[in-house]
């Protein structure tokens, strides 16, 4: 649905985006990952139409971005705020009209959202009367009220308490399940694991990886395995030593082991299967957190 091809953006001699290409399929939750200053915000701003790229293109259903199809985008910027001197209801309607809704439509939709989130009494309040989490809910409504096809969220869950996190998280998933695409830019790897179907990772303007979360994890083999025995197993420990494996932890027969390659695993398995007492065996895939740190550290070492 969104095709990003050979995107290039420079600021005063610095390259913010260096020839980036990837695609965001329709209907998925797509994570934008990368350390601070990697170029995520620049990329988001180009997609939202706030910045113009120096080269390359952003295609939206095979059409270049223009003022019309940009109204199909919903956007929640980072470190956002609200108008201090306007009532909550008024300012959401004000912003919704820019996205092509009529005042009447915007008001009707807003009432539905307020009822859904059980915040009907906020209509006449001013932002100062709301907590940060409450304001974040309001800003989320602003970004989805015109039912965009693509929703861009920059750190939508940062600074929220677990309950508000849960509520907003549910709304994001629900929005996605109605067939809409969500772009999620975040540093929080837990939310990546929780929400994202696909991710891309950039560092210093360069694309390090892009693809499905599941496949990314599969591709990144760690050779860490978990063996569960009924009790401590001396024979197993000896087998590990024999292949120069390293026992990371052992909790009453639950062993986590770092091995060197797949042959070592097969050898240990064939030896200990003769013995009884092995109740489970599994390979531990790296978390998105591990993948993030690994890729970025390697990329920085190469520079």
């Amino acid at each position: 649905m969104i095709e990003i091809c050979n995107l290039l953006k420079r600021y005063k001699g610095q390259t913010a985006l260096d020839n980036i290409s990837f695609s965001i399929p329709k209907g998925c939750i797509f994570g934008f990952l990368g350390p601070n200053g990697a170029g995520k915000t620049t990329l988001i701003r180009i997609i939202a139409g706030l910045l113009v790229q120096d080269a390359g293109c952003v295609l939206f259903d095979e059409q270049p971005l223009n003022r019309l199809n940009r109204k199909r985008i919903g956007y929640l910027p980072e470190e956002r705020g609200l108008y201090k001197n306007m009532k909550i209801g008024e300012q959401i309607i004000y912003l919704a009209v820019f996205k092509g809704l009529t005042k009447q439509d915007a008001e009707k939709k807003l009432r539905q959202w307020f009822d859904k989130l059980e915040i009907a009494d906020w209509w006449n309040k001013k932002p100062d009367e709301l907590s940060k989490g409450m304001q974040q809910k309001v800003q989320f409504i602003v970004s989805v009220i015109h039912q965009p096809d693509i929703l861009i969220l920059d750190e939508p869950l940062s600074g929220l308490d677990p309950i508000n996190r849960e509520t907003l998280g549910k709304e994001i998933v629900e929005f996605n399940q109605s067939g809409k695409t969500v772009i999620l830019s975040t540093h929080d790897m837990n939310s990546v694991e929780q929400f994202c179907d696909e991710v891309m990772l950039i560092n210093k303007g360069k694309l390090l990886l892009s693809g499905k979360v599941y496949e990314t994890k599969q591709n990144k083999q760690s050779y860490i395995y978990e063996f569960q025995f009924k009790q401590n197993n001396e024979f197993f420990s000896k087998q590990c030593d024999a292949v120069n494996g390293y026992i990371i932890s052992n909790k009453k027969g639950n062993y986590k082991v770092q091995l060197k390659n797949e042959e070592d695993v097969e050898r240990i398995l064939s030896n200990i299967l003769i013995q009884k007492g092995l109740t489970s065996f599994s390979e531990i895939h790296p978390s998105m957190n591990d993948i993030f740190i690994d890729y970025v550290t390697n990329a920085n070492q190469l520079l």
Partner: protein
Amino acid sequence: MNELIHIIQREYFTRVREKSFILITLLAPFFLSLILLLPIYFSQQHEDYKELSIGLIDNSGKLNESLNITEFKVNLLDGKWVDDIVSLINENNLDGVVYIESSDFSSTKVKYFSKKQPSIYLENIIRTSIRNKLLDNSLESFGIGDITKKISDTERSVFLETVKTGDAGRQFTPYHRNLCLLMGITVYLVIFLFSSQVMRGVLEEKTNKIIELIITSVSPVKFMAGKIIGVALLGLTQIIGWSIILYSIATFLENFASMSAAGQANGFLGKKIDPVEINRMLANLNTIDFNTIIPAFIFFFLGGYLLYSSIFAAIAAVLKHSDQMNQITAVITMPLILAVIVLSNTVNSPDSVLSYWFSIIPFTSPIIMMGRVIYGVPPLDFLISALLLILTVFVIIGLSGKIYKNSILHEGKNLTLTEIISLLKS
């Protein structure tokens, strides 16, 4: 177009409902009327002196009779120096005692004892009446008595009225001077007030990132234009509000003066005011050509406001924090402040070279030309000034729009001046 109206509506209605706006609209004309009326009120205060009763003790022997002062009586008391002046005042129920200590050719020493601190006005009356009396007495000894009466009988007052020949013989009163100062300063205030509202608005949107939401669907220049127009309408609302209230106050005073003349009014602030004074003030106001002044005021407000608000909008877009705002505002409004200083020259000589040039240069013309308009200006001067202002407004709006568009999303360190100039070239 719909988007532009949508923006203008928000900028206008959120501000017009603010308590501070309503208060300033309602109260400013009343303060202005007070400024005009209080001098009249205070001039009536001298009537109090008629009820004063003041005693005189003459130790020098040069006067030896009661002073005839029109405002109040000063009776000669018996005796020379009294030890206990306080009990003398209390026993005779006096307001004060004038004590002439000594008097020779060159100087006379006088002391005034009173329960209350005397006003400078009262001190003056006492001093001049003693001086006149002594002068009278000594002239009498030369055979020319009652000199002060003779002088006042022969004195002829001269009233100087200035009439500008090039201007269909219009007359000028001190009211023109006051109005010149007042209108000049008011134009300065409204330009500054509403331009800085634009600046604060831009800065708020930049800080709370709402600008990012808006310019995903509206062009930044259209948004800036909507904001500036919305606040301009707010300014016009205030000016119209002020005019209506001032007109009502003037009408009320006119009625009050005629009622007062018929003996029906009970006075103003508990004191009687001479209706003649109010009528004189109103008559003076009538010599002023409001049909020209009000449209000129609106024109120069709009011109100056558009000029400065677009500069302010561009600067707010470049700035990162509101604390830098005050410093830069001070620098940018320098020409306005300079104009207010030049205004004191314009008040006295509206056609001087200084006033002329300041009324032509667009950054100061809204204030100085406004001041000159009160006295009437040659049509050519006005035309040059107005055209130059309009032209500059268009150029500045164009430049400011460019800076605004390119820097409103800027984050990180502040842009340097060379970077801003390169924005203009891009």
